[in-house]
C-alpha cells in the first residue's frame, strides 16, 4: 500500500507561475468578523495546480479563516476568490471540486463508515449501487475497506480521521483542504497519516492546502510553505521547499530536512514576533 510510484518531489508538479497553472487565487482578501476581529487583511495567494501547500502560522493568524473562505464557507469582507479555469455553480463555487477535512473527524455517529463516505455522493444524487465501487476504492486507499460496516464509535481517532479523508476524496475533488487535521492525534499516528496523505497526493495529482501549526509536519509534507503572521492575518513569507530525497522515514532524519525545518522555524519565529509587536 505504501509503495510509492513517484519517489522524488522533482517528479511531482513543481511551482509554476504561468497563469494557466493557477487553480485558485485569493485577491486582496480581508475578513472582518461581526465581533470586530480583523482576521485577514489584504491577503493575496495564488495556489498552483498539483501543489502541496501548507499554511503555517501561530494561532489567531487567520489560516483557518483563509481556508474556509477558499472553501466558500463564509464570504470575504473585501477582495475575491477566483477559480480561473473551474466550472462554477449557481453560488459561484466550483462544483464538486473541493474536499474538506476538518480538525475533528466530523463523522455522523448514526451512520456506518460506508454511509459517511457515501454522503457527498448521496447529496449529489448518486445512487448507492452506483457509488459503491468508488466508495470501496477510496476506503481501500485509506486502508479501511474492511471497516465499511463499522460505526464511528468503534474506530480509533486515527481511523476516524482516515474515514474523514476518504469522505473528502470520494468525489475526486481537484482541491483538498485540510484544517489542522491531525492536531489531536498522537505523534506515531500522525506520522503514519502524513505518509498516507503524501501518497494519496502523489498518486492522484490533487492540489492540497494544509493548515498546520507544526513546522515539522509542514516541512515534511509540502513543496511550498506559506508562513502567516497575526494581527492582522497576512502572508509573511512564501517558501518553496525542494528536495531530491524521497519523503519517507529516512527523510525525517536527514540533514536536508533539518535544514528545511531550521529555515521554516526562523520564518515562523519572525512572523510571531512581528505579529506580537503588531507592526
Amino acid at each position, binding site marked *: 500500500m505504501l509503495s510509492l510510484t513517484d519517489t522524488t518531489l522533482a517528479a511531482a508538479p513543481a511551482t509554476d507561475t504561468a497563469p494557466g497553472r493557477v487553480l485558485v487565487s485569493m485577491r486582496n482578501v480581508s475578513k472582518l468578523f461581526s465581533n470586530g476581529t480583523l482576521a485577514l487583511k489584504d491577503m493575496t495567494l495564488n495556489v498552483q495546480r498539483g501543489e502541496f501547500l501548507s499554511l503555517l502560522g501561530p494561532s489567531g493568524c487567520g489560516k483557518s479563516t483563509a481556508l474556509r473562505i477558499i472553501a466558500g464557507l463564509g464570504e470575504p469582507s473585501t477582495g475575491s476568490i477566483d477559480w480561473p479555469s473551474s466550472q462554477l455553480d449557481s453560488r459561484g463555487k466550483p462544483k464538486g471540486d473541493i474536499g474538506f477535512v476538518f480538525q475533528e473527524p466530523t463523522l455522523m455517529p448514526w451512520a456506518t463508515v460506508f454511509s459517511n463516505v457515501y454522503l457527498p455522493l448521496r447529496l449529489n444524487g448518486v445512487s448507492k449501487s452506483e457509488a459503491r465501487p468508488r466508495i470501496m476504492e477510496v476506503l481501500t486507499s485509506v486502508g479501511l475497506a*474492511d471497516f465499511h460496516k463499522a460505526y464511528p464509535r*468503534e474506530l480509533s481517532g486515527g481511523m476516524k480521521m*482516515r474515514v474523514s479523508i476518504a469522505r473528502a476524496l470520494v468525489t475526486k475533488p481537484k482541491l483538498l483542504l485540510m484544517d489542522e487535521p491531525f492536531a489531536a492525534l498522537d505523534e506515531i499516528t500522525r506520522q503514519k497519516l502524513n505518509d498516507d496523505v503524501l501518497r494519496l497526493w502523489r498518486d492522484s495529482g490533487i492540489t492540497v492546502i494544509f493548515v498546520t501549526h507544526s513546522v515539522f509536519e509542514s516541512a515534511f509534507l509540502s513543496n511550498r510553505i506559506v508562513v502567516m503572521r497575526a494581527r492582522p492575518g497576512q502572508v509573511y513569507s512564501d517558501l518553496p521547499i525542494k528536495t531530491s530525497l524521497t519523503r519517507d522515514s529516512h527523510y525525517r532524519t536527514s540533514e536536508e530536512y533539518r535544514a528545511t525545518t531550521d529555515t521554516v522555524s526562523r520564518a515562523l519565529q519572525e512572523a510571531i514576533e512581528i505579529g506580537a509587536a503588531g507592526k
Partner: protein
Amino acid sequence: MSDAATAIKSSEAGTDSAVAIVASRTSMTERILRVVIPVAMVALAIGLWQLHITVNNVPHYIMPAPLTVVTTLFTDWPTLYPSLLVTLRVTLLALALALIGGVGLAIILVQSKWIELAIFPFAVILQVTPMIAIAPLLIIYIKDPQTVLLTCAFIVAFFPILSNMVAGLKSVDHNLLNLFELNGASRWQTLIYLKLPSSLPYFAAALRIGGGLSLIAAVVAEFAVGSAGRGSGLAFRLLESGYRLNYPRLYAALVLLMITGVAIFALTSLISWLLLHRWHESALKREN
C-alpha cells in the same frame, strides 16, 4: 461488532487500527440477576401486602388483599375491559397526534427565528395553563367528552415533544452543517440526512416523556370532565368504585392503569433503544 473485531488483522488499516473496541459480553449470571432481582422485589412487596391483610384481618372495604384484587380483575373483567380500551385509545391517539404535531411544528419552527418568535408564545401559554383548569371549559366548546379527553391528553403531551425536538433540531454539529453546505445540500436534504437523525436522542426522550404524560393526562382529564356513563374510561371506573365502596374493583382498575403505564414505558424504551443502540452514548455500555 464481529466484523470490526476480525478485521483488525488487516495489515493495511494503520498502526492504530488494533485500538478498535470489541464489545464485552455480559456474563450469564449478571443477565439472570438483572431479571430476577426486580421481579423478586415486587413479589416480596406483594407478599408483605398479603401478609398484612391476613395477619391484621383488614376488611376488604378498607384495603383488599392482592388475591382479592386479582380475583376481582377476572370477575369484573367485562366492566373493566371496555374502560381499559377507552383509556388506551385516548392515550395512544393523543400520543400519536402529539408526536406528529410536536415534531412537525418543531421542524417548521427551526426554519426561521421569526416563525419561532411568532408561534412559541402560544406553545408556552398552552403548556403553563393547568389542563385540569381548562378541561371543564373545553366540555362547553367541544360537546363530545371523548374529544375533550383527547384534546387534554394531546395538550399535555405535545409541549415536551415540541421543546425537545426544537432543542434537538438546533443542536447539530456545526462542522457537519458546514460539510453539508460545502456539498451543496438542499434545505430538505439537510433536514432528512442531518437534522432529523442527529435529533433522534431528543426524540427518544420526548417519546418516553410524552407516553407517560398522555396516560396521566387521559386519566386526570376524565376525573375533571367525566364521561356521563357512556364510553367510560378507567378513571370513571375508579371514581364509581370509590363512591360505591367497591374497593376491590377500584384496586383492580388501579392495577390495570399501572400495567398500562408500565407497558407504555417499556414500549417507548424499546423504541428508543432500537433507534439509538448502535451509536448513541445513552444506549451504550461503558467499556471500562
